């Protein structure tokens, strides 16, 4: 398995995800956003951070980078794409995933561990969660409030394209367990081909028992 982590000015989780990928024997290389050719990869990761200082809208400027065309081609050919946090925002701005990520409902930057319910097990990123559907990942974001018009939300629900929903430790999905105001507690979604996943929580920060647990490991183990 070969991966490329795209680095933008302002990315700050690029090295974290590289450590995670290396830990699970995925051969990774870092790719600067200004490159025009995407190196041969099975998986492309758009990391978290504050690409281009979050100017205009989060992920917006990054979505116009030179490397994006290569990523679109890779995704359209069925290649795997994972967007974490700011990476999710970039995927949405690039049009690979629907909707928008608004400022958190309570206007506060959130940095804490949250419980998630894995709501789609039929994709390579989530296959490993068959026996553990309630997991704990860290979140760290200011714009994670997923919004889309009703028809799109309905489509995501009907086609089972929601990968993760915010919940409490017992798996209850409701307003109390929704940290940022996301529609239907959405934390992560898939494209129709289920080869593109965008999520606000950070699986790469949950790969070590000493740091936020190891629930993220399951995702990376399964990719090999």
């Amino acid at each position, binding site marked *: 398995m070969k991966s490329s982590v795209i680095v933008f000015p302002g990315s700050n989780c690029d090295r974290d995800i590289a450590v995670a990928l290396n830990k699970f024997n995925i051969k990774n290389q870092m790719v600067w956003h200004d490159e025009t050719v995407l190196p041969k990869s099975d998986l492309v990761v758009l990391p978290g951070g504050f690409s281009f200082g979050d100017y205009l809208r989060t992920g917006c400027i990054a979505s116009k980078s030179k490397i994006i065309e290569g990523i679109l081609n890779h995704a359209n050919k069925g290649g795997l794409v994972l967007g974490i946090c700011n990476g999710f925002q970039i995927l949405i701005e690039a049009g690979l995933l629907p*909707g*928008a990520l*608004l400022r958190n*409902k*309570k*206007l506060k930057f959130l940095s804490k561990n949250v419980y998630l319910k894995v709501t789609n097990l039929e994709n390579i990123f989530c296959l490993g969660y068959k026996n553990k559907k309630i997991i704990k990942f860290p979140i760290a974001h200011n714009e994670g409030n997923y*919004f*889309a*018009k009703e028809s799109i939300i309905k489509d995501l629900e009907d086609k089972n394209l929601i990968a993760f929903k915010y919940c409490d430790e017992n798996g209850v999905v409701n307003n109390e367990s929704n940290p940022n*105001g996301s529609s239907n507690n959405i934390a992560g979604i898939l494209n129709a081909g289920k080869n593109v996943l965008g999520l606000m929580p950070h699986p790469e920060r949950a790969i070590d028992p000493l740091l936020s647990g190891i629930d993220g490991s399951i995702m990376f183990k399964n990719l090999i």
Partner: protein
Amino acid sequence: MKISAIVTLKKDVLDPQGKVVNQTLKNMGYDNVANVRQGKYFEIELDESNEEKAKKIANEICKKLLINTVIEDYKIHFK
């Protein structure tokens, strides 16, 4: 040609910042403020004297970069 673009949130999109500004104005004693919605304003200088062409470019700029059509609307003004 100078163009200004006003970007506003669509009606059904929650605007927590606008809500806070609204509440603050009320707290300051402006009881007659009914609602506030926050938006963005852009001033664009375009090297194009043909108004039709400028209009086309300005619309393109707005749709391709300045706004997110999922959550925002825009209006263009020429000076």
